């Protein structure tokens, strides 16, 4: 299973979550967990996803999410979960 962390950051407004989730669904990415908060008017969403069935190579997916995010002034990153496990767990 290719588990990854998707982060979505940007100024809060209507429809961000729906936009991000639709984007992921279009590429057959399953959302396993979501955490979302508003920090000083900033929308901050962190999702754990399973990208095993994704129809794009991971690097292309990362570029696509980034570019799609930019069209709505959002910073969308996708990074393999291993990175966070390595940095924050012994």
């Amino acid at each position, binding site marked *: 299973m290719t588990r990854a962390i998707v*982060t979505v950051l940007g100024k809060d407004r209507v429809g961000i979550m729906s936009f991000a989730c639709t984007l992921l669904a279009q590429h057959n990415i399953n959302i396993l967990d979501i955490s979302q*908060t508003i920090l000083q008017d900033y929308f901050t969403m962190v999702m754990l996803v399973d990208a095993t069935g994704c129809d794009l190579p991971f*690097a292309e997916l*990362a570029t696509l999410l980034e570019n799609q995010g930019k069209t709505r002034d959002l910073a969308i990153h996708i990074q393999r979960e*291993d*990175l966070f496990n*390595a*940095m*924050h767990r012994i």
Partner: protein
Amino acid sequence: MINTNEIMDTIHMIDQQHLDVRTITMGISLLDCADANADTACRKIYDKICRKAEHLVRTGCDIEREFGIPIVHKRISVTPIALVAGASEAEDYVPFAAALDRAAQTCGVNFIGGFSALVQKGFTPGDRRLIAAIPEALATTELVCSSVNVGSTKAGINMDAVAQMGQTIKKCAELTKERGGFGCAKLVVFCNAVEDNPFMAGAFHGVGEGDCVINVGVSGPGVVYHALQSVKGRPFDDVAETIKKTAFRITRMGQLVAQEASRRLDVPFGIVDLSLAPTPAVGDSVARILEEMGLEVCGTHGTTAALALLNDAVKKGGVMASSHVGGLSGAFIPVSEDEGMIAAARSGALQLDKLEVMTCVCSVGLDMIAVPGDTSAETISAIIADETAIGMVNTKTTAVRIIPAPGKQVGDTVEFGGLLGSAPVMPVHSFSSEAFVHRGGRIPAPMQSLKN
């Protein structure tokens, strides 16, 4: 799932604090490329490098994209060319540098290190020819880096080599004078050079290494600087703890990248080098970390102690995070490549003498320092001798990468651009060391060498 704050911490480290993996360096042995015919040897060298490193850059870019961590450099280090070329009948070793340069261009890496000789105890004919070829090799190639090891704790200091390197550095500056003496930025003179260093310009693939290996150099001065802002005014115990924790996380990231690169390229993992390598970007400076500890400007009294603490804490934090630590491992203090160092040197607070003292407690040495163009070869040799003595006696690696900037005076600035940054020209002592350098011979190995 990992806690949201931890995830956001990592994102901020990368986006705002310049966290990156500085380099993935593939070490390639060229011992099997030696040939009596120099043309054949050069062809074998080119072929082997291109074969081994064919996928290096692409793999680095893939990892970068998938993990979302910038990997700034993909590079290659090779067996010291003096050993490989020494088997040939060639008198001129510049074609060997040209072969390395072509191979590096083909593979798409941004530097290749190993146009090197190890002469701490004496010269072979191959070593002499290589050193003679360095100025032209560095002036006529773009990506080749060169290093010469002139001393070690075990062997002492080869003062003939020290004298020769002063001349070589002057010649390098002369041949690249229209680029501010850029050739000198690709040449390092070492004491106790390490065989698995992934950082340029001093990287080479030692003879004790395997056929091919992946070494990774981490970075992250900006992250350490940021972390220290949360312990303002607190005792040094807290400072050391904070640096250790940060270094641990940075190194874990480096270890992950190293393992991933090793697996994908099917090349054994060598080491992670725990170095804080600065860049000229604002917020990515080692000098600013020292200043954050309470110094008005880097270079004032207290700088050495601050650097000693930083260097030690980085190692303590990093060593547990990686299965194999090696290379240079410590804080780098390259003047032209560190925004805070540049500012400190410009203000006059940071002098050459203080930098020399700082190298006693940190990784490597006098790095990327510009001195007036009319500095004599003997003065440069004497600077090398001092730095080598520090390394020899303290059983550590020291190095000199110095640029006698052609036509420049104290107060001028040399612009190298990119990660090499810009170097304010620093004054050297005007009193002569000529008679000292001209003695030649060897400085005997110190008592520290007799450990058996």
